[in-house]
């Protein structure tokens, strides 16, 4: 809302002051995220800017923490870089293992959550669904129940069926945590869905499956992908459940960061954090592009 021409001096002052306040709050929001990036290049093992860094001396900066990501945990990090070195890196480097686990668990959990969640959202969006409100609440509850309770409960139960300290256990747990997001986004997409399209498809002779894959899915795809992304990020970022359910084999990136923070704060964590921030920026851009695409598809344009 721009400054109206009839504004008095008090209102003018407030107009600018308001914008300064908002700017301050936005800076508060973004600074911690961005500050991690320069700190990760610190040549010394401290969590703060050394005088050399502030004067932009090149010696004060180094990539050693990024190297440490690769070397930490390797049996013989100084060996010449050949096939053996890569195998060593792939199997033993702690952060590499954590990255592998995070992606493997994240993708598997996302697939489960998206498939089951989309089906359920389709069912829930129909008028005839009995007990819709109750079931929706139940399916959304993993998002609301504090994660410590979920983790505690899952620990007892999964341990008793032998699923603790296994990949499957963690994947199932993360899928359960990601499902509410898929349901929310797909349901939201389905509310604007034109049911007559389905009837048209049926009248043209399509059976249920063809209707789904060729008519429904392309239109709810943005919702599905959006939900899938939320579910992936939830799993990727999740640490409490992994803390209780996972063994050292299944350690994910956040779990590794947790040990690093508790035991020894070394800027390697900042290097990993920088990489994660860059990934977040990438994901954010993807979501924004998808949103614009769906707006184009629906014929709406940004104001």
């Amino acid at each position: 809302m721009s400054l109206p021409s009839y504004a008095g001096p008090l209102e003018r002052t407030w107009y600018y002051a308001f914008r300064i306040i908002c700017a301050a709050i936005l800076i508060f929001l973004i600074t911690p995220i961005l500050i991690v990036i320069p700190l990760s290049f610190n040549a010394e093992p401290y969590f703060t800017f050394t005088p050399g860094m502030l004067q932009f001396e090149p010696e004060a900066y180094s990539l050693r923490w990024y190297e440490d990501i690769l070397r930490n945990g390797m049996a013989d990090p100084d060996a010449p870089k050949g096939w053996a070195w890569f195998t060593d890196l792939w199997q033993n480097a702690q952060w590499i293992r954590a990255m592998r686990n995070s992606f493997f668990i994240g993708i598997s959990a996302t697939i489960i959550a998206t498939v089951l969640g989309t089906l359920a959202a389709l069912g829930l969006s129909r008028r005839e669904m009995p007990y819709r409100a109750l079931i929706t609440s139940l399916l959304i509850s993993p998002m609301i129940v504090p994660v410590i309770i979920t983790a505690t409960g899952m620990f007892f139960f999964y341990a008793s069926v032998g699923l603790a300290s296994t990949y499957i256990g963690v994947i199932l747990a993360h899928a359960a945590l990601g499902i509410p997001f898929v349901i929310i986004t797909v349901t939201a997409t389905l509310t604007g869905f034109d049911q007559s399209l389905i009837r048209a498809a049926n009248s043209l002779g399509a059976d249920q499956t063809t209707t789904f894959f060729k008519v429904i899915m392309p239109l709810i795809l943005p919702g599905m992908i959006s939900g899938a992304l939320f579910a992936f990020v939830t799993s990727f970022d999740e640490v409490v459940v992994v803390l209780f359910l996972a063994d050292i084999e299944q350690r994910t990136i956040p779990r590794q960061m947790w040990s690093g923070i508790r035991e020894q704060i070394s800027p390697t964590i900042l290097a990993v954090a920088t990489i994660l921030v860059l990934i977040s920026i990438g994901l954010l851009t993807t979501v924004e592009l998808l949103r614009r695409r769906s707006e184009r598809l629906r014929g709406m344009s940004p104001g």
Partner: protein
Amino acid sequence: MKTVLKSALLATAFGVAAATAASAGELTVVSWGGAYTKSQVEAYQKPWMAKTGNTIRSEDYNGGIAEIKAQVEAGNVTWDIVDVELSDAVRACDEGLVIPIDPAILEPAPDGTPAVDDFIPGTLSECGVATIVWSTIYAYDADKIDGDTPATIEDFFDLEKFPGKRGMRKTPKANLEFALLADGVPAGDVYEILASPEGVERAFKKLDTIKDSVVWWEAGAQPPQLLADGEVVMTTAYNGRIFNAAAGENKPFEIVWDGQIWDIDLWVILEGAPNKEEALDFLKFSTSTQALADQATWISYGPARKSSAPLVGMYQDGKTDMGPQMPTAPENMKNAVQNNFEFWADHQDELNERFNAWLAG
């Protein structure tokens, strides 16, 4: 969608490959991490792997028997052999979580003395075999303190003479004993006094005098970090970690041995461990006279066997004599208290609760 599926399949393939690669007949050895695990890797694990050709997977943990209990009760045991404190060993043994170990299987001393007589009294437990004698002491950064340097346990609680923050482990263990010692209780009477409600009151009152200046640490690697960062002026710590920072990283840290609380660490083998035979073999190897003496080259913890003491030599840098760095060295034992595991096995739940309430209040 197709690309997502493809990448999912690839990831699965990698994941499965990775998972299977790691667990083929490996012995899982669990210890406390950092410099201590490194000393075990050099003195026990590498030589044993070289001798037997087996592989070892080394894991870190922060103490307590929670993970052990969880694994055994769920029937899904992945840890084979764990390095625990004595009170944890006793508790785990009583609850059937670890197997009994017959001292007869242990290596005798080089001169033929059976293991039972060679180990320091009190270091062989029903289910555990001791490796080291370690101690909780307090340390300070000599560069940061001018003039008088701290020399007694009372100095730790003296905020006027030595202003600045203190580091303490976030547990009542050792802290209550320190408090009583600083309050004037003789070393031999500490646990008797602590067993009474008035004694506990007295200990907490003494702790109250410095409560606001305390930074609480949980992992063994933190105290040297806190000193190096300048977060604290003095901190309680495990003596070996401070020594390693001082000798290995040339930090100007000094240890105050007055009022030390010494304890032992033992190997225990979990009930239902997947590699029990290898675990027993590793246990035998690592508790032999030479192995224990070798460990002292890497970290300043005393070997639990009497026959190892004369074999203790120099630190790995070849410059420092390890003898005086041991908790058991005579000049360090003048005002020492041995941790009373029975007391803590009985009272740790209650005192933990009280300690947490005191912390949160």
